[in-house]
């Protein structure tokens, strides 16, 4: 490995910029994530900065079970991030679906849509646990095992539309569906 590559590898561990995404959490975990970013916990000690744009961020911090509404958007945001990128699932819901796991509108944990590198369980996950998880993720960045080998990728629009049909067959729902399709199209164009 040449020195510049080594330097960049080192820098990657020292400067993780995060972006926070709520995939369908009850807001408990979001409050804890925001709490972890306050001066009291001072994540900047580890070089963590919160960024607004997915293009700038390295770590996608997701909370909550993935609902059908957010599945596409989550995938979209993940695709917009620049390589190398990592996903951290915060909270029991994000890890497995949690109490919402069996809901008709829930796809499951974050790993049902995008590959996840670190799971931080807890309902809600404590800020200390979140910090610990992020730091552990950073210290093992070079470890290839952390990267899921076969990421599960949803087949965006069609699959989603089918599922919507199934779940809400009883009701007439053309409006939601059209909205859904238009939105998905728009998002794809933007990406």
């Amino acid at each position, binding site marked *: 490995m040449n020195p510049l590559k080594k330097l960049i590898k080192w820098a990657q561990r020292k400067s993780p910029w995060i972006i926070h995404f709520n995939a369908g959490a009850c807001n408990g975990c979001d409050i804890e994530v925001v709490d972890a970013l306050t001066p009291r916990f001072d994540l900047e000690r580890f*070089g963590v900065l919160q960024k607004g*744009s997915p293009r700038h961020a390295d770590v996608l911090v997701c909370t909550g079970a993935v609902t059908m509404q957010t599945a596409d958007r989550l995938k979209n945001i993940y695709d917009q991030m*620049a390589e190398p990128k990592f996903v951290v699932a915060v909270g029991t819901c994000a890890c497995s679906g949690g109490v919402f796991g069996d809901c008709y509108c829930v796809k499951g944990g974050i790993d049902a849509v995008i590959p996840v590198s670190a799971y931080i369980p807890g309902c809600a996950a404590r800020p200390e646990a979140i910090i610990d998880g992020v730091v552990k993720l950073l210290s093992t960045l070079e470890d290839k095992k952390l990267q899921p080998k076969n990421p599960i990728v949803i087949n965006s629009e069609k699959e989603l539309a089918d599922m919507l049909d199934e779940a809400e067959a009883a009701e007439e729902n053309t409006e939601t569906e059209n909205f859904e399709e238009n939105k998905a199209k728009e998002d794809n164009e933007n990406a």
Partner: protein
Amino acid sequence: MEFFQMLVFPGLIFLSVYSFALEYFDRIVYARLQNRQGPPWYQPIADFFKLLGKEVIVPASVSKLWFKLLPVFAYAANLAAFLYIPLTSANSLYPFSGDLIVVLYLLTIPTLCFFLAGYISEGVYSGLGAVRALTQLFAYEVPLFMALLAPAILADSWSFAGISAYYSAHPIMMLVNIPAFIIAIIAAQGKLERTPFDAPEAETEIVAGAFTEYSGKLLALFRFTVDAELVVVASLLAAVFLPFYASNFIISFILYLLKTVFIVFILAVFKGLMARLRIEQIVAFCWKWLIGIGLLQIVLNVIIKGAF
């Protein structure tokens, strides 16, 4: 020799190292004001190299050439401005009469590059950020020019060397320029797009402003430009408002570091204590107050110059 100077001191390498150092200083002061420990000393360097290693994404509908050239232009303009500012002696690397004006105009180019970068990115957020950056340019530019030209009017010279010669001969006249110094500090905060004038890149409203679509190396270069701008503006304020130099190079260099660190400290405290203004509040504030005081300062300087 000249090439060496341009490359090492006071050129590219010094500017890079010093801008990392000042960014660290800025962030640590900011953290202390929030009762935090702050980042470790290598943080700006780690951020820069991490971004170098990241993938560059160019949106499909954007002109590739300009998307990639604009960060380079912005940095080059900063570096050019830096070469004309005297650091350790009254003369810069290439002194000529009127270099103060040239530096002021060169410093406008990075802001224009930010605007263009946002404009050609074709995103909603980058477009909004670009328009705000340009609007803010019209707000702070006039007071900044007024504040920096007022001492020059008193010294009767448009060059850094002339200003330094005059104020070395009449040190008491420095005190006349205190209002201009305050205006310059506030306007510089607007120039550098820092709180309370950070509406162009307000991350809680418009994601990241003009830089929203930038990633990887290009973003690294833009951040580098913003850091370098901090050094250039601090050096410029030091050269105009505190134009004292020692004859010994080492002492002079330490003096320069003290002057710029002092100015960046004021800027960082400003950033830590203020909340963000809306864009129309920025424009109203600059035109109502800063320009009013700036005009008074210029009139005062003209009268004093006539009287003595």
